[in-house]
């Protein structure tokens, strides 16, 4: 990313586009994730302002002393440049004065607990650039007071507070706003819970405090990259606040993800268990009805129904045919019977004819007249009937008749047999059709019963489908959760990289200048054989001393103190030159000679600070030290708040 991109509206688009490209997610999703995690880059002007203590006064009573003595300090006016709070002996209140200044500027008590109830009223005046402000504690021990602004001959209350908590909050709100600072949140996990540890003004103030035995090059020893973020904020790099937000979001996300993962793992495990249970149910249902198919059952019913219909139709047809056949059979039977009767009758008639022709009539059946033999012979010769004299008929050809009747009888018998066979055949067909229909009916009943069971099968088919849907949904949920976590994580990781790219070039350039200047100042402060100093983006200072590389952490306390002062002043110098930065330019150095710094180094430090303070005219450096030749020679009296002899400063 070659051009310098600012976190303005246009820059934000470029920024989101770059994150989108790097993460592989859409710009909409990226924007959504960033918004969700509270990452909202904005332009905050890092125009250097200068905080300067202009006056300090406090009253009270020293308790525990015998007798208790009143406290009445100040007002002690101060200005830019190097100031010294000195006493000829230790434990004369030098550090306490620095701590009171710190207390007034941060709202947090740094004085010894035993002293907290000593102070009644404390007044600290300070300026931010040309604006005048005052911290006025009316009941210092309670933390009651007000923050005032002095303008146009009036004082305006900016805040009031009635306890230490409110005091600290008021000062934090004021300075964070005025200096364009942003709380840096560090999300940690404690006792299994995620805790946001905001580091605000009290922590940021540590960049203005140099303790005798510094633990860190910048501010105080902090976990992670807190020191680097503090430095970035004070150096005024754009996107630093955004980086802070991203870092905090990542930290929160990691903890939350870990916690969620625990929960999710539990939930996921439960879900997987549920999925397994549902899958087992599905498998059972599948196996139970593996061979059963509603369609098969319906097909069977349809086929059986068709067979029933066909058999029923055949049966009806056969029954109708049988009716006809039986009618024909009856007709044939009657005809046969008639033929037989005719035949029988013919035979009997023939026999009867023979019989009565053989018996000569003996009388007239009507008149009973006896027929004589003569008359009978006469009629016999005449071939006429002796009773009625009718000419005798020619005898029927009885053989022909008998033959004809026999033929007719045989034909009738054949016909009857044919009809009998026909009826038998149709009866057989009817029986077969009945059987077929009965069988088809049974098959229909069986298929209907199966279909009734199919209702269960169909219900279970639906149940299997429901189970499939439930399993898919649970799997999707598990997957979605993972995907969502992955998505946020990837977007934040991409955002961190991209955001860092936005300023790291600039950061590298500035840090190079700061590093070079630090080396220069450190040499001024008496660190010998220092070939180079390199401060990286992580606020890690690497030194080349006597041709050997080393690090800040490997240096002595005296070197650390000097290096810390050198680095802070270098940063202030670069900020002033670049016109960018948020360090307020106030440095409180507590007893730099108390770290076993050798005298010459101590003198170099004080001398160097004195020289630099001339160069850095807008910087105010207040150091506490035992009064000695070094201080006396480098800090003019007017710039000394001092106690002589055994006196206490307050």
């Amino acid at each position, binding site marked *: 990313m070659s051009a310098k991109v600012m976190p303005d509206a246009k820059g934000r688009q470029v920024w989101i586009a770059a994150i989108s490209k790097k993460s592989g997610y859409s710009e909409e999703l990226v924007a959504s994730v960033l918004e969700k995690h509270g990452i909202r880059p904005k332009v905050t002007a890092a125009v250097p302002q200068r905080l300067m203590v202009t006056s300090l006064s406090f009253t009270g009573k020293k308790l525990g002393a015998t007798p208790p003595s009143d406290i009445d300090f100040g007002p002690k006016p101060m200005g830019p440049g190097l100031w010294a709070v000195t006493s000829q002996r230790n434990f004369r209140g030098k550090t306490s004065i620095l701590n009171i200044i710190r207390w007034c500027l941060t709202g947090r008590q740094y004085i010894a607990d035993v002293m907290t109830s000593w102070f009644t009223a404390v007044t600290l005046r300070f300026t931010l650039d040309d604006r005048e402000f005052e911290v006025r504690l009316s009941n210092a021990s309670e933390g009651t007071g007000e923050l005032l602004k002095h303008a146009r001959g009036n004082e305006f209350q900016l805040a009031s507070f009635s306890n230490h908590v409110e005091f600290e909050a008021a000062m934090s709100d004021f300075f964070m706003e005025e200096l364009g600072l942003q709380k840096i949140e560090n999300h940690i996990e404690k006792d299994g819970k995620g805790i946001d540890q905001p580091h605000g003004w009290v922590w940021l103030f540590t960049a203005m405090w140099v303790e005798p035995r510094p633990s860190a090059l910048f501010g105080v020893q902090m976990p992670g990259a807190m020191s680097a973020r503090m430095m970035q904020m004070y150096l005024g790099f754009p996107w630093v606040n955004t980086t802070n937000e991203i870092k905090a979001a990542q930290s929160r996300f990691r903890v939350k993800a870990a916690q969620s993962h625990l929960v999710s793992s539990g939930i996921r495990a439960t879900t997987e268990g549920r999925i397994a249970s549902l899958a087992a149910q599905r498998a059972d249902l599948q196996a139970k009805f593996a061979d059963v198919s509603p369609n098969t059952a319906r097909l069977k019913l349809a086929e059986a129904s068709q067979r029933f219909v066909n058999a029923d139709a055949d049966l009806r047809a056969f029954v109708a045919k049988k009716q006809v056949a039986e009618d024909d059979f009856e007709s044939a039977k009657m005809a046969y019977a008639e033929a037989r009767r005719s035949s029988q*009758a013919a035979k009997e008639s023939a*026999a*009867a*004819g023979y019989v009565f022709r053989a*018996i000569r*009539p*003996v009388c007239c059946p009507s008149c009973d007249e006896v027929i004589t033999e003569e008359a009978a012979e006469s009629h016999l010769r005449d071939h006429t009937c002796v009773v009625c004299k009718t000419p005798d*008929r020619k005898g029927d050809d009885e053989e022909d008749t008998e033959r004809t009747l026999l033929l007719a009888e045989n034909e009738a018998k054949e016909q009857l047999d044919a009809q009998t066979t026909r009826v038998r055949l149709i009866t057989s067909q009817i029986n077969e059709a009945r059987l077929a229909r009965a069988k088809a009916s049974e098959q229909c009943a069986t298929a209907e019963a199966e279909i009734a069971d199919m209702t269960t099968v169909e219900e279970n088919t639906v149940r299997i489908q429901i189970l499939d849907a439930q399993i898919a949904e649970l799997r999707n949920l598990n997957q979605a959760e993972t995907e969502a976590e992955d998505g946020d994580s990837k977007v934040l990781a991409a955002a961190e990289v991209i955001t860092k790219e936005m300023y790291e070039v600039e950061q590298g350039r500035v840090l190079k200048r700061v590093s070079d200047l630090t080396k220069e100042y450190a040499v001024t402060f008496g660190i010998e054989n220092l070939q180079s100093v390199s401060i990286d983006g992580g606020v890690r200072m690497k030194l080349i001393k006597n041709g050997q590389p080393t690090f800040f952490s490997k240096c002595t306390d005296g070197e650390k103190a000097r290096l810390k002062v050198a680095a802070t002043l270098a940063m202030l110098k670069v900020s002033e030159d670049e016109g960018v930065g948020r360090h307020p330019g106030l440095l409180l150095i507590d007893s730099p000679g108390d770290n076993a710094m050798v005298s010459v180094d101590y003198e170099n430090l004080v001398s160097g600070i004195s020289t630099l303070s001339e160069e850095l005219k807008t910087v105010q450096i207040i150091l506490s030290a035992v009064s000695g030749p070094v201080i006396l020679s480098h800090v003019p009296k007017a710039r000394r708040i001092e106690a002589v002899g055994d006196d206490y400063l307050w």
Partner: protein
Amino acid sequence: MGDVEKDYRRDAIRQLFILVGGCTRATPPQVPDFPYTFKGEMRLQALDFWVRYPDYLADEILSQFEQSSDPEMLVAAREIFAADEPDVRRMPMMRKYYGAYEPLDTSLAILKSRGLVLPRTRKTSRGTNVRDFLLSEKAFETCAAVVENFPLMNWYRERIALVLRIADNRGGKALKDRQHEQKEYHDAQVGDTIPTIAQRVKMRLDRMGNTR
């Protein structure tokens, strides 16, 4: 006259067998040379009905079988149907006012002219006229000759013996009354032929056969 004559002759033969089979010897004979008497035309008609309707006869046989449990009865009924007699041997009779009726004059004239049967009217004790039939020895001889020369005519002799056994010396009115107990017989319209009851009797016979 040929066909009609033949039927009358056949009827005459059948009626001769009935008269011969159902007559008794009269002592002394009413008319010389006619020592046998068959009493009542109504009886003759009734007996002729059972000869001409083997199904009605079979039904009567089964009724008597139910009373007597005589197995010969059941056998006789079975044989009637086994020989298809209800079809083959049925000779329809007309329903007249008093029941089945066949005009006997012509057939009796044939018998009379041959000196076999002599119809006589008799007044009963109630004052009504009934017709009896006197038979000569020649009638018996003729029946024997018929059976000898025409074995197929033996059926009549045997059937009439069965009918007379079933009739059990009941008079003509008793027989008619018994026949009127058959619904089909009684309900037949005057002028119609008496309908067959073969199917019903066959079913009855089958039922009896299955339970015996």
